[in-house]
């Protein structure tokens, strides 16, 4: 191909490889985290600042278990070992979250504390959890993905299609999107169709009425934490498989997750997912350098000399914040009208 011709197919192959696929998987990871925050918010009535660090905790368990499995040679070729140990890790994370609930949050529920007090205690939990993770695994970044890295690589794609610009599908991307779809379907089915799910929604809509109709509040709270543990561990593991594990990174994930939840309408599960993809796509679209993309699309005389990057990569967390601020200014209830919790 000569560089002075306009080449739309290659341009979009480039965009798919570097923008759309990464944003899709990042969005799915955020969506799972945001769903966990939404569940805690709807049922337990506080914004859980410990979410990011809980994700780090779940991932830590996965890393420890998969390290053990790999050491013993108990692996299945082609599949990341981390996936195999997720169920056991969820059990551990559930135990941890339920313990925290018993030790910290239950007291405030009992005395009907203001929600801001519970938020503050969740910050205490955030630091304790973050500390535990850093003591056990250290603060430095690490990778724990094993097995096949690609479903199909750039070279295979090029050989197959004959395009100059290749698309690679990473195993982690494929797994993220697939698992996220399955998990979200399960959560929605659970909330809409099962008896326990209905009890949770009733409890979330009107606590007093739910108690009157014989719903056991302790059970609802426990089920919520179990679901949160599942979402948290899976979201954390998928993010780690995709981008590597670093406690500080997970801690900062709190920002895009909160942005997703508020953008979608706090307390609304559909909104949380929509918000997550909005945040993820804006983040990736705005920090991508469009130089090569424009070279494909524009005639030679108009080729850009700079990177054509709208916002520096170092400010990617600022993007979720800016989205948050814009939504708060224009439509504070979010895209899907969420609920507002009033202190009792």
């Amino acid at each position, binding site marked *: 191909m000569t560089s002075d011709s306009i080449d739309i197919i290659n341009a979009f192959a480039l965009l798919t490889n570097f923008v759309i696929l990464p944003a899709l998987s990042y969005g799915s990871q955020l969506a799972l985290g945001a769903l966990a925050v939404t569940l805690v918010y709807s049922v337990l009535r506080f914004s859980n600042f410990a979410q990011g660090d809980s994700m780090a905790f779940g991932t830590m368990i996965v890393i420890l278990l998969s390290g053990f499995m790999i050491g013993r040679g108990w692996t299945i070729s082609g599949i990341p070992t981390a996936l195999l140990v997720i169920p056991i890790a969820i059990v551990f994370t559930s135990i941890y979250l339920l313990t925290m609930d018993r030790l910290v949050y239950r007291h405030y529920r009992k005395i009907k504390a*203001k929600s801001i007090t519970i938020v503050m205690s969740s910050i205490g939990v955030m630091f304790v959890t973050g*500390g535990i993770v850093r003591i056990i695994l250290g603060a430095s970044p690490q990778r724990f993905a094993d097995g096949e890295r690609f479903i199909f690589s750039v070279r295979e794609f090029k050989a197959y299609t004959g395009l100059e610009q290749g698309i690679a599908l990473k195993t982690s991307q494929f797994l993220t999107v697939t698992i996220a779809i399955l998990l979200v379907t399960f959560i929605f089915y659970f909330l809409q169709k099962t008896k326990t799910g209905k009890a949770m929604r009733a409890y979330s809509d009107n606590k007093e009425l739910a108690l009157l109709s014989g719903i056991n509040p302790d059970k609802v709270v426990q089920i919520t934490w179990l679901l949160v543990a599942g979402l948290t561990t899976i979201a954390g593991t998928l993010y780690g498989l995709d981008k590597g594990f670093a406690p500080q990174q997970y801690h900062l994930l709190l920002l895009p997750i909160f942005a997703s939840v508020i953008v979608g309408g706090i307390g609304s599960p559909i909104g949380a997912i929509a918000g997550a993809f909005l945040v993820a796509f804006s983040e990736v679209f705005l920090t991508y350098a469009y130089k090569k993309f424009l070279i494909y699309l524009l005639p030679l005389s108009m080729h850009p000399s700079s990177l054509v990057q709208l916002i520096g990569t170092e400010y990617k967390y600022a993007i979720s*914040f800016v989205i948050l601020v814009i939504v708060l200014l224009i439509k504070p209830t979010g895209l899907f009208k969420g609920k507002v919790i009033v202190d009792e």
Partner: protein
Amino acid sequence: MSSLNNFWQSYKAITSYALMSLVLLFVGLNQSWALALGIINMSLISAVMALGVNIQWGYAGLFNVGIMGFAALGGASVVLISQQPVTEAIEAGGIKMLLALALGAATIAAGVLLNRRGANRWLILVIVVIGYIFTRYYFSEASSLIEKVDPAISGYLGGFGIPIMFSWIVGGLAAACAAWWIGKITLSLRSDYLAIATLGISEIIIYVIKNEDWLVRGVKNVYGLQRPVPYEVDMQKSEWLQNIIAWIHRSELQILSHSEQIDKLSDYVREASVVFVELCYSGLFLLILVAFIVLSNLALNSPWGRKVRAIRDNEVAASAMGKDIKRQHLQIFVLGSAIVGVAGALLVTYDGIFISTAYQPLRYTFLIWVMVIVGGSGNNLGSVLGAFIMWFIWIQSGPMGLWAVEMFGNYVQEGNSSLEFIEDRVHYLRLVFMGTILLLIMRFSPGGILPEKNKEL
């Protein structure tokens, strides 16, 4: 036993302050006075910061998770006010940078104005996007020009070269502006939006400070800041200090030979000069702290303070009485953040160096919160006490953790890799430790050590 308890109840404040002083006295006598004064100075600065947070949380129940960001704004303004301007860098890219910033400001202003006039939303969007692209283009050109000027030493524009004391005021103002903006957006919404938004803004402030090298040198740090107090070297040359030291140690010096006398005296003078400089800082910080305490106590006992407490204790009733709650909260949020900004500026002044990587939520946001909660939220004297206690624990917990590891290490062989491993990780214990203290106090003694007196229970 019950009489002891009664005594504690009625003289709580005095007793706890006396105990704290005894502990510091012990450090001074046993370790060194310079160390004790260093702890006191850091405690004083933390106390100012805790006071700002207490005004927000204790007076109005506003939860600020972004203390670090406001402190960093204060710190950055010290650099921007007190450092000498770098003329080469200003010649290279100063004008361009100014133009880029003006273009950015004009874009925002145009967007806001058109929005108020009710212009077409898409038109506004197009104007803002085009404005942004041009701003960014000029901006990156200017910043790379500035950063190329002698990057090992400067590579930034420098400051205004004004005496450093002014930067404390500017730091407060900068923090107040950021707080006003954040408060304006979030205070009329749910209570935890403020917490989320402050978390966000403080992370962004840190990212800007770390990445915009042309502004405050990014992660390359700014050394050798001005000092509001004399230098140790100058003090050692001053005759009056030498005379005082000679007089204090006269009995000891008399028995020595002449040459020994001189050696011994210069040792003492060196030590004394450090103590003197620390004392100067202590006086300065104490003055500021007392001024803030007096002002905020006066304010709290005025009609304004009664209104503030009324709003905190029962928002609905207060708003039924015609009090403007949102306005009141905004006022308090701005005031508290301004005080945090001043404390951030004091901290960098005291350190004499601006380190952008030092701004970590654990120390600036979380430690300050623990101080306020431990001391007693709503009580200014409580926050000050909390600052002293927690800073002392914080500073001693590092060596204590290492000491514990070394004790443990005596049982394990030297150079054992697991020992290094533990030493590497042990300081993360602080995270767990601080978090646990916060949770325990909130759970079992929500009033803290010195609970607020005016609070309706």
